[in-house]
């Protein structure tokens, strides 16, 4: 059994109460904000991943596109008479198909350079003189 002074002191202390603390809700809400923030980061990462994927895909597709363009140019050069090709077309042809380019050069050289083998060729006339 407690002594009276003890009971008295206990009762006296009970007249005091601890000061109220701020609610835990705000801290919990912070926790939810953290969770939402994580979702945002995840979404941002997904967007970044998609952008990177698109870049890689585009980088893989682009060479095919270049090949197709070169093919189209080749078709275009095939349609044009070889002797009428411009210097730009010749350059493109040289890059796309070196054998064809050699063929074109040989054909053009037969028309533009002097013929040394014909009956009236310059070399034969000089030899007769």
């Amino acid at each position, binding site marked *: 059994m407690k002594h009276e002074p*003890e009971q008295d002191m206990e009762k006296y202390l009970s007249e*005091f109460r601890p*000061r109220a603390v701020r609610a835990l809700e705000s801290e919990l809400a912070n926790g939810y904000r953290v969770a939402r923030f994580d979702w945002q980061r995840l979404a941002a990462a997904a967007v970044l991943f998609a952008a990177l994927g698109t870049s890689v895909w585009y980088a893989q597709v682009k060479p095919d596109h270049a090949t197709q363009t070169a093919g189209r140019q080749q078709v275009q050069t095939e349609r044009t008479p070889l002797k009428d090709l411009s210097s730009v077309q010749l350059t493109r042809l040289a890059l796309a198909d070196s054998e064809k380019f050699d063929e074109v050069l040989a054909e053009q050289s037969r028309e533009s350079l002097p013929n040394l083998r014909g009956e009236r060729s310059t070399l034969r006339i000089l030899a007769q003189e």
Partner: protein
Amino acid sequence: MKRTAEEVKAWYEKHGAALAAFACSYGLDFAAAEDVVQHVFLNLLRGSAAELRSPVAYFYGAVRNGAINFHRTRRRETALPEGDEWLVSRGKSREEILAVQQALQHLPEEQREVVFLRIWSGLTFQEIAEAMETPVNTVASRFRYALDKLRERLSSTPTRRDANEARA
């Protein structure tokens, strides 16, 4: 083990104020004491606390450690910040409230903890004994010694002195 938000919130509402006052008795200002208590309960929510055999004992132990760590990290003196009230009472003067706070601060740790558990967390001696893993008789003795010291220290407080004289 992760606790549900409702369970932690219920514990916080029941013991949060007493725990903050307990942290203040280690010399923390009230805002810092609130932070320490919130940290303890948020750790529970995050599941970083181990399985609790006695939640109340865990709270008091964690808050005590938190208060001590706070002093270590901030390198503050353990003296109570002047004028910071962490107890309230209707009809009591500010002077009297501060006197009770200081008297509680001067108690040895184990006696102070028993007083907080008994008076402001509402535990029985048996529950305190289980929480502190201490024999019931020891708990009762600590409480009795604590009350003696408080009475002795507060006897010079005007209101207490008047009450004592009136009773005599």
